[in-house]
């Protein structure tokens, strides 16, 4: 039943309401999809026992609709390992606020999605457990760090999935897998229950195959949370209401030229973005070409701040209260050092050390303090830019999905996959990646629409209008 695999959430809800399918049958369907297809894809680290999943709200708008949850988002009494050995047997003692909110709307969770270890990576290759493959080409990565979530939605194994985005970890895999990926405004969705990586950058993000579904799920989770004091003091509301396929009056879209014309961008990506710009113009948008000079420093700034915050956040994994412990250690220091060496993979160890380096006496001035200053400049530049434009547009990723091992010998180039996305985490605004074409090798290309702080309403409306005027969102990988 291929249509069911790629149905949108409203289509599934309608089928359930019309009794064309029961929730039990729907769950069976998606569980069978995983059984059939996930051996070759590797999206899920765990599928929950079907008898243990149930909707908590029969009247909720997401009643019975199953999703996959990234392994760094806590679900009470379920394992949460962040794809790391250090948390192999960890069982979450509480649920993330986002999980509770989705449960309150009736959503169900089918399992845990594979990811880069502790969300550190752009290919899902650093997971301690398995690699996830891109359903468009099994020799290619799905992107990262939320690769399992992106691939599962792209392959029709689930209608939606949660990820987390610290420097692009929802938007980049969304682009590489040809699905919709939203990073909300910082503070829009509570981080309570999201294992921290870069706390001033992290946001829970959403994977769907349509903008409407993204807006629906976002509406379920966005809102102030007493348990996360960084959540925005704005009331939750329904972001699907104003999605009518039209642009909002006359909007001005700023094309980030120094991104679109960066050296090293794939020609196919450039062509797809240019086509998309023409499409926006046809729909009535005013196009302005702009430059963001501070973007040149976005990756460098992100490297410093994210790794500094990661070093701090991951200090808690010390083998004392939970997680892997070296039981042969004779001293406390040995216990810490060996447990962390054994439990963390090389990429995580490297990032922690860089983080501590840029914070250390003698280096903090030239690295961390300067990075904070540059971040302040970026925020100022964005605020100034948004005085004259409504939305920004640029590529999500410089190329389509790359092959496994492509950056084994060049980790820095791998890190630069975040080039177009990390600046948005630094400034805190919302951004969405939408499918907008394919490379000549039939790999998806994503465009990134960026809104002003708390500008999700306009972002969704514009994204929806573009999506509905094209057919990219209706394309699915062959064989699924």
């Amino acid at each position, binding site marked *: 039943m291929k249509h069911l695999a790629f149905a949108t959430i409203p289509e599934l809800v309608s089928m359930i309401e019309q009794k064309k399918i029961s929730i039990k049958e729907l769950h069976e369907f998606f569980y069978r999809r995983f059984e059939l297809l996930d051996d070759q894809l590797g999206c899920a680290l765990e599928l929950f026992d079907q008898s243990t999943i149930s909707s908590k709200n029969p009247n909720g708008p997401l009643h019975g609709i199953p999703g996959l949850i990234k392994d760094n988002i806590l679900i009470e009494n379920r394992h949460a390992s962040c794809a790391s050995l250090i948390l192999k047997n960890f069982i979450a003692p509480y649920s993330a606020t986002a999980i509770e909110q989705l449960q309150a709307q009736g959503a169900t969770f089918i399992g845990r999605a594979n990811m880069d270890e502790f969300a550190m990576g752009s290919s899902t290759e650093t997971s301690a457990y398995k690699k996830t493959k891109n359903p468009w080409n099994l020799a290619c990565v799905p992107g990262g760090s939320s690769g399992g979530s992106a691939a599962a939605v792209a392959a029709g194994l689930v209608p939606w999935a949660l990820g987390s985005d610290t420097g692009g970890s929802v938007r980049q895999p969304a682009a590489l897998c040809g699905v919709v990926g939203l990073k909300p405004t910082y503070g829009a969705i509570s981080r309570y229950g999201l294992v921290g990586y870069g706390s001033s950058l992290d946001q829970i993000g959403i994977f769907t195959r349509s903008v409407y579904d993204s807006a629906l799920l976002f509406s379920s989770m966005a809102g102030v949370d007493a348990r996360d004091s960084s959540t925005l003091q704005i009331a939750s509301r329904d972001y699907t209401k104003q999605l009518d396929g039209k642009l909002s009056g006359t909007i001005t879209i700023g094309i980030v030229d120094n991104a679109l014309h960066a050296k090293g961008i794939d020609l196919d990506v450039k062509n797809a973005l240019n086509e998309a710009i023409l499409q926006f113009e046809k729909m009535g948008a005013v196009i302005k070409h702009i430059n963001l000079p501070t973007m040149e420093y976005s990756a460098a700034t992100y490297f410093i701040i994210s790794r500094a915050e990661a*070093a701090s956040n991951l200090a808690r994994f010390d083998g004392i209260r939970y997680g892997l412990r070296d039981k042969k250690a004779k001293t406390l220091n040995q216990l810490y050092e060996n447990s962390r060496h054994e439990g963390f993979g090389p990429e995580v160890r490297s990032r922690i050390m860089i983080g501590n380096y840029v914070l250390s006496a003698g280096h903090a001035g030239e690295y961390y303090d300067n990075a904070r200053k540059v971040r302040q400049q970026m925020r100022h530049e964005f605020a100034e830019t948004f005085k004259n434009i409504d939305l920004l547009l640029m590529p999500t990723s410089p190329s389509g999905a790359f092959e496994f091992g492509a950056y084994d010998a060049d980790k820095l180039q791998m890190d630069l996959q975040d080039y177009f996305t990390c600046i948005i985490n630094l400034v805190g605004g919302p951004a969405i990646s939408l499918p907008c074409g394919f490379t000549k090798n039939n790999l998806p290309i994503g465009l990134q629409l960026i809104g002003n702080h708390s500008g999700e309403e306009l972002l969704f409306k514009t994204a929806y209008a573009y999506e509905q005027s094209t057919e990219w969102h209706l394309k699915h990988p062959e064989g699924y």
Partner: protein
Amino acid sequence: MESFNIARDCVKRITKEEMIKLAKTSHIAIDLNEIAPVAEQLGEVLSYAIRVQEIAADTVLTLQANTNIFRADIIEQCNPGPLLRQAPERADNFFVVPSIIETV
């Protein structure tokens, strides 16, 4: 506009002693044969990241106006069960750890 083809000529060199100290600060053991390759990888990233100083000089950090979020100071009962059940080693309501105080 900088591209992804980054300049590699000034790779920061982290000495062996610095690496050992960094590992210690990070509370992560480091094998002798790891020191050189890890130092090289760190050096590459740091050599790239240092460019922030090119434009940072003229900026004075302004403190953001923060809003304090308070909650009522009410003591809630806490069930230690779920927290203790995954302790690597426990005794009653305590985590067992290597001794740090010499007993005579």
